[in-house]
């Protein structure tokens, strides 16, 4: 994956930090944290839309424990879209959510069972360093974004995934 590119770096700095250290088992504080998560995500999506670089949609269940949406990647002018989902782990925000692209399960070695993308080398240390101030928006920006940029073109070029119109 390499280090983060300049664009990602400057974007992540614009995503607001979160203040409340609370996981989903913390009945009192979790709603507060969840509000911060949404506020940061709104800011991030606005930033993306502002620079015409929108690349995902996301929303959670009522409890804020399960998140799902779509993410997409443009390669050679074609849009490749994937389902995105993840659970907020019980030890959140000390540990990051494990982002899943279930459709790609078994298609790349940079993935664990169930389509969990492999983020251990670069992203997880960074999350630990910034815990508990990073949230879902940061995970998408620093985890999923760079992973897709590295993996998707490779998967397309090697014929492992093809555009939906060509199927």
């Amino acid at each position, binding site marked *: 994956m390499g280090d983060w590119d300049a664009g990602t770096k400057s974007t992540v700095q614009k995503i607001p*930090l979160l203040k409340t250290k609370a996981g989903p*088992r913390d009945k009192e504080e979790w709603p507060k944290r969840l509000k911060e998560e949404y506020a940061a*995500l*709104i800011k991030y999506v606005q930033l993306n839309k502002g620079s015409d670089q929108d690349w995902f*949609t996301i929303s959670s269940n009522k409890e804020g424990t399960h998140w799902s*949406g779509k993410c997409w990647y443009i390669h050679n002018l074609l849009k490749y879209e994937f389902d995105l989902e993840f*659970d907020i782990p019980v030890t959140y925000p000390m540990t990051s959510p494990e982002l899943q692209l279930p459709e790609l399960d078994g298609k790349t*070695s940079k*993935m664990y069972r169930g389509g969990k993308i492999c983020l*251990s080398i670069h992203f997880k240390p960074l999350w630990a360093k910034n815990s508990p101030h990073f949230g879902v928006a940061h995970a998408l920006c620093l985890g999923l974004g760079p992973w897709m940029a590295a993996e998707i073109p490779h998967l397309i070029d090697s014929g492992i995934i093809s555009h939906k119109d060509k199927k």
Partner: protein
Amino acid sequence: MMEGGSAPVKEQEDATHPMKAFASELSKLQNQVQALQSTKLQEQVLKLRDSVKAINERVQAAAEDLRKDAPVGMGSGGSSAAVPTSAAPRAANPPVVVVKREKIAKMSAEVKDDNPYSRLMALQRMGIVKDYEKIREKTVAVVGIGGVGSVACEMLTRCGIGGLLMYDYDKVELANMNRLFFRPEHSGMTKTDAAVKTLMEINPDVNFESYHMNITTVDGYDKFVESITKDGDGKTSRVDLVLSCVDNYEARMTINQACLELEQNWMESGVSEDAVSGHIQVIEPGVTACFECVPPLVVASGIDEKTLKREGVCAASLPTTMGMVAGFLVQNTLKYLLNFGQVSPYLGYNAMKDYFPTMDIQPNPGCSNARCCKLQVKYEEKRKQRKLDKEKGEAVEEDMGPLHEDNEWSISVVEDDGPQQEGAGEEQGAATSEANLADGIEFSMPKADVIDEKTLEENAVETNDDEDVDELRAQLEALNAK
């Protein structure tokens, strides 16, 4: 007789279809084996398994019909249900005598070829273990039934552990075959079910419990805690030890949280992603560092990080390293459960240099986990009380865990011997700074940066007290829809 006679014909007709399907799937599998397409191979193995199952079900149903139709006393009657699972070609082979290990009510020390416990009970005669049979009263939970966990389970099973609770959310796949324990025919089964199947045959005296689940989700966590507590009350642990054999930070942090809440001692184990180092670590809530006290400690492989080629794969693994770590883990477990030798608080393994560092990690009073801090205080009070009692000359029962002197938060490096162990004369643990870890041990994660209030305020997200989560969710969804 007419009715009875018609049944076999029906059975044959019924079986024709799935048999054909089976043959065609089998030939597909053969083609794929030749082409070596691993993902397709696995799919095919699964399909085959399903067709074998379908055939078995049909044959069984037919046999059942036959039995119902047949007059009493005709044929082999009751035993017919057991016949269908062995396929026809078997008949041509000479009969294989399968030895089934029956349950044994009491461990015997008698030296006999058919006593599975004789060599273990010999530990008593040799004076290594005082009361080996105590192992039957012990229950261990193993979380993660992979390269380390499955082997650890097999070791505990062969040692005659009383109860074994196994947790994993994964299934066996052919990519696991570079490790020990699982066999290709387990492909597609859950790791916990496959493990129970094999282990039950090895030692049916063990009470196995299989939990196919992910413990890191909110629901999974509750179920996990429920399963290791008495009557599922979520409060009192019913296990003697938890062994962490997982391969990721999230799951370790989850086990840490559960064990802190239950005041349950546990042992952590790990093998590095480059497969050439590993470690085990004992965690006693409040007494030793918890998993959150300091960033995870790993053994440095001694390889320059920059020269490591990581592109293309998430992790490498070796059956050797994993088998050794499982061995260290269960050895430490046996010592802990049966009270012999010295329990190593931390033992590392560097395969490149065959180097085995040991150390002792003290709890961090500033641990980010509030539960850990609370238990540290509790333990400290207990320790003081014990000291007072001792001064009064009362007989005090010693705790299992190592006792710590009053010193500030630090990681004390103890070469070869833990503190407070008999015969640990020469080198008492010298308190050192965090930077002074035992040689060859390093942190695998950075510590959290402390952001000062002002910077945080400037960069923090703003939320409005009047707005609730639902409104914010609606706002984001509206943005999504644009």
